[in-house]
């Protein structure tokens, strides 16, 4: 059993309320941080090696140090709670059950960055979570941890909630800032980066909910203590939201030294695949990362055990690896059809593409159309190559990473499951009546380099 640092108090009754949270040692990090200088707080975060939990895994301390600090211009911290990635629900869990952890992290981080007005941009669908957070902010304000002159230190910090209106693209940081300003959520062309010109042209840092929450244990126990957990450059614990064909889906806080096999099959975590089915494939980090077949998921191409961390999951690049992403762990058993699965992702990205730049607007539509054709038994062999060609022209050519996110799952599905796409072409009748694909991927296959 690993030591939990984010969800250690989540089981305590009424932890949602300020009184209980405070009694259990909450808001200690604010008290501690206010006695330090902002640079010392930043130094602790740098020492911890904390990496952004939103998907890209960019070191948080480095991101904070890029923040421009011109005189007389206010700076802002924006918390990205627009968790719209299919398969990811870790932030919702954290915000719903232990909202004060996020507020505490917001105040501490705001102090380090010198932000007097901070925002939590939450997705519109999380309506009830937004109410919980607003209540938590009001409670913290009554007790003097948010607002003017926090604990008599002279530091002001207001935290505001902002509800999104249900667009996936608003999870991209510059689109989020546009939406926060009240405009249409279209990603901006970078540079200038948000650290220089963010919301209302002011320097802004955008961080994920889990990243900001992780600042609390870093300040409480020190950055070195945090860096001891985990392995290599993947320090600390990570929240994983497991779903799909699992006995015990849910949110788990894991040490990043855990192997993927143990995570799926041990009773402490997901408890294996239901009905004695075999593991076929898995998307280890939310819908936008490449899918991996079972043989490559449990072992890397070099034959090492794959661990649940940034480096190990991306071992082998996109040829034989995937990405940590945002921690949405989607497991498919032997009865699931990869083509159908890819179609449902392509449909999602087609719908959510903002339509600003051409490769993504047109390309996602094409991916959706071709995959629909294949899935409904009208496909040709040439469609598979066409699909490959279309995804290749999206990746890397777009303003924001949504284009990449739409292209990668399709590319990986064709790369690892080409037989299944071909089976859909050769067995047109069967793929209409039978709603699942080929099971043979679940058989153990020897991995060659």
């Amino acid at each position, binding site marked *: 059993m690993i030591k939990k640092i984010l969800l250690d108090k989540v089981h305590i009754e009424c932890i949602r309320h300020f009184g209980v949270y405070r009694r259990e040692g909450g808001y200690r990090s604010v008290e501690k941080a206010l006695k330090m200088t902002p640079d010392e707080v930043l130094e602790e975060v740098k020492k911890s090696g904390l990496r952004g939990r939103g998907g890209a895994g960019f070191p948080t301390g480095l991101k904070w140090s*890029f923040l421009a600090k011109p005189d007389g211009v206010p700076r802002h911290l924006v918390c990205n709670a627009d968790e719209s990635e299919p398969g990811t629900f870790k932030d919702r869990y954290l915000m719903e059950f232990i909202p004060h952890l996020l507020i505490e992290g917001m105040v501490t981080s705001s102090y380090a960055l010198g932000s007097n007005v901070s925002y939590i941009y939450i997705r519109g669908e999380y309506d009830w979570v937004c109410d919980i957070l607003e209540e938590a902010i009001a409670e913290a304000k009554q007790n003097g941890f948010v607002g003017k002159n926090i604990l008599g230190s002279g530091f002001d910090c207001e935290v505001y909630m902002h509800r999104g209106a249900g667009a996936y693209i608003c999870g991209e940081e510059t689109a989020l800032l546009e939406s926060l300003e009240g405009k249409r959520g279209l990603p901006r*062309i970078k*540079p*200038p*980066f948000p650290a*220089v010109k963010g919301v209302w042209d002011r320097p802004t840092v955008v961080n994920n909910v889990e990243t900001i929450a992780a600042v609390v244990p870093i300040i409480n126990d020190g950055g070195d203590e945090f860096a001891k957990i985990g392995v290599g450059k993947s320090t600390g614990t990570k929240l994983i939201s497991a779903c799909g064909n699992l006995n015990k889906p849910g949110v788990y806080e894991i040490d990043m030294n855990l192997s993927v096999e143990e995570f799926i099959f041990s009773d402490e975590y997901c408890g294996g695949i239901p009905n004695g089915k075999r593991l076929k494939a898995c998307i280890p980090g939310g819908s936008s990362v490449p899918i991996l077949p079972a043989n490559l998921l449990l072992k890397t191409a070099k034959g090492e055990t794959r661990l649940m961390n940034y480096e190990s999951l991306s071992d082998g690049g996109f040829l034989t690896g995937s990405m940590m992403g945002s921690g949405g762990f989607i497991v498919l058993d032997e009865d699931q059809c990869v083509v159908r699965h890819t179609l449902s992702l392509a449909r999602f990205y087609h719908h959510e593409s903002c339509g*600003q*730049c*051409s*490769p993504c607007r047109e390309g996602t539509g094409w991916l959706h159309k071709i995959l629909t054709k294949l899935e409904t038994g009208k496909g040709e062999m040439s469609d598979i190559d066409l699909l490959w060609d279309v995804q290749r022209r999206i990746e*890397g*050519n*777009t*303003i924001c990473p949504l284009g990449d996110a739409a292209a990668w799952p399709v590319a990986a599905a064709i790369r690892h499951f080409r037989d299944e796409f071909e089976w859909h072409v050769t067995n047109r009748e069967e793929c209409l009546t039978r709603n699942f694909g080929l099971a043979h991927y679940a058989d153990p296959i020897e991995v060659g380099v």
Partner: protein
Amino acid sequence: MSEDQNLIKVTIDGITVDVPEGTTILNAARQIGPEVAPPAMCYYSKLEGSGGKCRTCLVEVAEGSTKDPRPMPKLVASCRTNVMDEWW
């Protein structure tokens, strides 16, 4: 890199040209000639803030400058990227 304060030397497809600071890659390429300039659809020089959307003018920047520490080579929209980028 620059000899004059305001002039910057840039090399596009092996042809070197001097352009004033703040010129976009597209305009620098257009100074050389149509055989070098990438196609551009959504960029209209008289309309401020246009460009960067259609992605037909993507060019590969082979070598970055000291002012732009991003890893190169990288595909950028030439109509919205200044030669020798000062932003970061």
